[in-house]
């Protein structure tokens, strides 16, 4: 080691939940990316001679009432559900953080208006409002994303507004003002990057919520449409056979639980690493 290059910083030790979460999510991403190579069968190929077969060597998770391989459908479903979780969080994240930061920084009447809108959105039960918006827009994954964006931003807005209210009186903002920086620059270059940590941690646990509501919406027939392999639909379709063919609902259910667990571990771990108090 060269003289002077010795670092006094403690080696960063990643929290165990973060590693666990990263492994699960990493596994899911690999499954999603390489689904065509990993899945032994075509997820929508029907084999009517082979319906409702219990798990076996040929079909590790069994087959459903159309003779489709449940194992392959769960793997292909990873693509849809992962995408749903990420896109479903992305738009609320952007909208919520922008509105929250403006609301908190500008204050006054702007803040009052935005916060009353947040109150109105929060006054409705989450799923009811989602379903109402999807019902108006028509079923489909696009409608789900729009509904998610319209409903989901409020949590981010509240979170970042609270952070901004604290940060706008902080010393480094005063210092930035003393350097002649404009309000817009201070808000987006200095306050938002500092306030974003809490939002990022929250977004990880929000992914869980989005995946679950995506599955719920699909289960109700308003989201992803059959025959696409999606975990929520698989559970919905399998419920008629739950007493005779438990594997149709159980495996996609476990997949949802595993992915949700991965994201919430990631949220915990990130929170621990970045020092966010929930």
């Amino acid at each position, binding site marked *: 080691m060269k003289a002077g290059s010795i670092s006094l910083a403690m080696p960063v030790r990643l929290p165990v939940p973060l590693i666990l979460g990263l492994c699960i999510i990493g596994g899911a991403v690999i499954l999603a990316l390489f689904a065509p190579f990993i899945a032994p069968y075509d997820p929508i190929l029907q084999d009517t001679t082979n319906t409702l077969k219990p798990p076996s060597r040929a079909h590790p998770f069994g087959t459903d009432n159309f003779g489709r391989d449940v194992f392959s459908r769960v793997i292909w479903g990873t693509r849809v559900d992962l995408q749903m979780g990420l896109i479903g969080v992305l738009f609320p994240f952007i909208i919520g953080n922008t509105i929250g930061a403006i609301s908190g920084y500008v204050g006054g009447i702007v803040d009052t208006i935005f916060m009353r809108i947040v109150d109105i959105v929060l006054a409705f039960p989450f799923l009811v409002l989602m379903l109402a918006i999807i019902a108006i827009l028509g079923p489909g994954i696009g409608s789900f994303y729009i509904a998610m964006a319209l409903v989901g931003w409020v949590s981010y807005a509240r979170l970042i507004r609270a952070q901004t209210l604290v940060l706008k009186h902080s*010393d*480094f903002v*005063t*210092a930035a*003002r*003393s*350097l*002649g*920086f404009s309000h817009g620059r201070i808000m987006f270059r200095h306050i938002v*990057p500092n306030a974003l940590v809490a939002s990022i941690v929250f977004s990880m646990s929000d992914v869980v919520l989005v995946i679950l509501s995506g599955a719920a919406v699909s289960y109700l027939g308003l989201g992803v449409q059959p025959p696409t392999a999606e975990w929520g639909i698989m559970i919905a379709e399998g419920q008629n056979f739950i007493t005779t063919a438990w594997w149709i609902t159980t495996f996609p259910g476990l997949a949802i639980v595993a992915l949700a667990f991965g994201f919430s571990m990631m949220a915990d771990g990130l929170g621990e690493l970045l020092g966010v108090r929930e």
Partner: protein
Amino acid sequence: MSAPLLDIRDLSIEAHKDGERLGIVERVSFSVATGEILGLVGESGSGKTVTCRALMRLLPTRSLRISGGKIEFAGRNLVTASEAEMRHIRGARIGMIFQNPASHLDPVMRIGRQIGESLVLHLQMSPREAKAQTIELLRQVGIPDPQRRADDFPHQFSGGMRQRAMIALALACSPELLIADEPTTALDVTVQAQILRLLVELRDKRGLSIILITHDLGVVAQTCDSVAVMYAGRICEKGPKRDVLAEPLHPYTSRLIACQPSASAEAGLLPSIPGQPPSPSAWPSGCRFHPRCERAIGLCRSSAPELVTVRSNHVAACHVTAPARLADEAA
């Protein structure tokens, strides 16, 4: 003598609280010449920080307001300047450094980028030029290995290094005036001396004018050319450093000097000024120092003393000592 760089005349600042108006700062006047270091001394709450925030026009608008006077900076009255004008003055022509450098640097931005940001903004430098200039600035304020340290975050710097970075940040655009708000209070004594030496050095090299806010008369003695002493929102004495420290006129200044700890003094309790500094909601009548002053006479209770010039540039506001000194000088 040419016109001073900064000339504050009768500056008053009011606070609005529950519909009441409180005079936080009253008719404060002082001026700073090019290349001068002025020490602004006083206890906490005496109005020194508020005065300097006001001259940057950085008072919290909802609670504090400039209610009178003018702040003339390089021929311009900053009290009436527009917000857009002020943005070009802040950072570019008046820089400011603060007591606690740890909290005044953006914790999630690299030091180099923080300094570069104002170079790009005020001097329209390209990012590449700004980067080179940033490294040069860090070198000038005495940060070793500036090339590499520019990519560090504030938490990777020590306290003294952060204050140096803060100075580099404030001086990035070569302002004519630097306001240093207790720049060494949070630092230990050896680092404190280094930072003060750096400030004097920068004054010598760049002809920078500095307002040094402090409550430490030792710091004043080491660095300043002149001193203004504030008490309860008013200036009670000001003049050349040598005169004020060697022959203080105002009893408050004398007591402050007496309160300085010294290594040679016998161990024991440090002297202190009895009583509490008054609060703006209950300023004493007359001279605001009279309840704590052992030389107070009846007149001090009823009428506020005006600043009286006793010698060239040395002024004090006291009913007792100023006339006595004047008589001495005349004799």
